[in-house]
């Protein structure tokens, strides 16, 4: 019997070590594939999946929850999209807070909290971002995933060198996994294009009048604290901006550029002919100047690098030493939703949307988001 070489012994031991390490890291990564629960309010009329509108999504990682709140009286129909970019938590959480609280008495509200469900199942590589962040509710704790801007590459592969999106715009290859570059979507396209197509089908079949896509941006990004509007929604956006100034939120108006195609605020308006608005708040955790990425950076938004950059006048938003916490970003989104609903009613009284139990932005600012989230079941 031949003598076993030393390097074979070490190779066997290291192979075993690699398997054990994959087991532990795999379990941690698999945790991200588990959806956090959302506990809709008693005003919920129906809970569907996006595949209801586009059956090809059924069973895929792109299928996602759709919450319908139908009022007794006829009025306007509103779509609220959170989680288009799962690394922009204020958009996702605003949708969750709304789904867990509102009761609609007039009109219809459709909420999709995790628009790109696949993006929630992973993080951006080499960013060191946390997989989760935590929020204290009254006496318990809710855990939410912090995902990636893009669809998970294990769900959609490969990326082309140059991506020509369904609207004909040439973009860099990775944008093929960015939901907000894939509108109006494709029936037989890549997964992200199919999700976009499913959302367009939802807009058509639910006869949506106003679509809101909730986002965040890095503080150094020029389009920030902004209402980005389709040209058909200019008046609506201007009315809402004035109302938001009364609430103490200074948002700028940005018209959707005619030659920037594939984005919600362009294609929803052009292809589905609805009023389309995209909202942005300032999120340090997705910026390039941030310090150590952590759950508290996401929730508290405190970052000395951004505070310094702000003092030096290098940012497009004032970034104070005390940070811009998640509760302020969610409150700003909620205030904007309220202002836009009010402006829609003012411009077209037939499109009234009356929402009861809407979490007031002032209370979110004072008490935080926790009191407006349900307890995890079983806690």
């Amino acid at each position, binding site marked *: 019997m031949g003598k076993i070489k030393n*390097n*074979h012994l*070490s*190779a066997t031991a*290291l*192979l075993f*070590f*690699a*398997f054990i*390490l*994959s087991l532990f*890291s*795999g379990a941690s*990564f*698999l945790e991200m594939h588990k959806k956090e629960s959302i506990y809709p309010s008693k005003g919920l009329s129906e809970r569907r999946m996006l595949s209801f509108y586009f059956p090809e999504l059924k069973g895929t990682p792109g299928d996602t929850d759709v919450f319908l709140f139908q009022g007794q009286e006829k009025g306007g129909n509103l779509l609220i999209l959170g989680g288009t970019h799962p690394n922009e938590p204020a958009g996702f959480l605003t949708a969750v807070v709304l789904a867990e609280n509102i009761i609609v008495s007039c009109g219809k509200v459709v909420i999709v909290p995790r628009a790109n469900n696949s993006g929630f199942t*992973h993080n951006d590589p080499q960013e060191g971002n946390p997989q989760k962040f935590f929020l204290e509710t009254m006496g318990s704790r809710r855990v939410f995933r912090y995902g990636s801007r893009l669809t998970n590459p*294990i769900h959609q*592969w*490969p990326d082309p060198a140059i991506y020509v999106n369904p609207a004909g715009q040439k973009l860099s290859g990775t944008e093929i996994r960015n939901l907000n570059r894939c509108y109006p979507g494709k029936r037989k396209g890549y997964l992200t294009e199919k999700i976009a197509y499913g959302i367009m089908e939802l807009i058509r079949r639910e006869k949506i009048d106003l679509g809101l896509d909730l986002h965040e941006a890095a503080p150094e990004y020029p389009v920030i604290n902004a209402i980005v509007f389709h040209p058909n929604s200019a008046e609506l956006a201007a009315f809402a901006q004035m109302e938001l100034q009364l609430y103490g939120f200074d948002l700028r108006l940005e018209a959707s550029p005619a030659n920037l195609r594939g984005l919600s605020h362009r294609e929803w308006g052009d292809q589905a002919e609805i009023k389309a608005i995209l909202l942005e708040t300032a999120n340090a955790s997705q910026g390039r100047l941030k310090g150590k990425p952590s759950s508290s950076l996401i929730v508290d938004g405190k970052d000395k690098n951004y505070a310094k950059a702000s003092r030096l006048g290098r940012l497009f938003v004032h970034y104070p030493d005390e940070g811009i916490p998640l509760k302020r970003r969610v409150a700003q989104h909620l205030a904007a939703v309220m202002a836009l609903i009010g402006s829609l009613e003012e411009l077209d009284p037939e499109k009234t949307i009356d929402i009861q139990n809407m979490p007031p932005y002032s209370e979110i600012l004072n008490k935080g988001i926790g009191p407006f989230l349900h307890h995890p079941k079983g806690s």
Partner: protein
Amino acid sequence: MQIIYHLIVIYLTLHFIWYLFRDKKFWSQVSTAILLVVFLLRVLLIK
């Protein structure tokens, strides 16, 4: 497309295992093993 992805990743994973056993330097084997972790996660479509 997923089959092609799997075939490429399995091919590379087997190559890493092959080189792990062929390599004589211990620290080269350690770096191969660390790289192997990422590829094992890819084979299993986890990350």
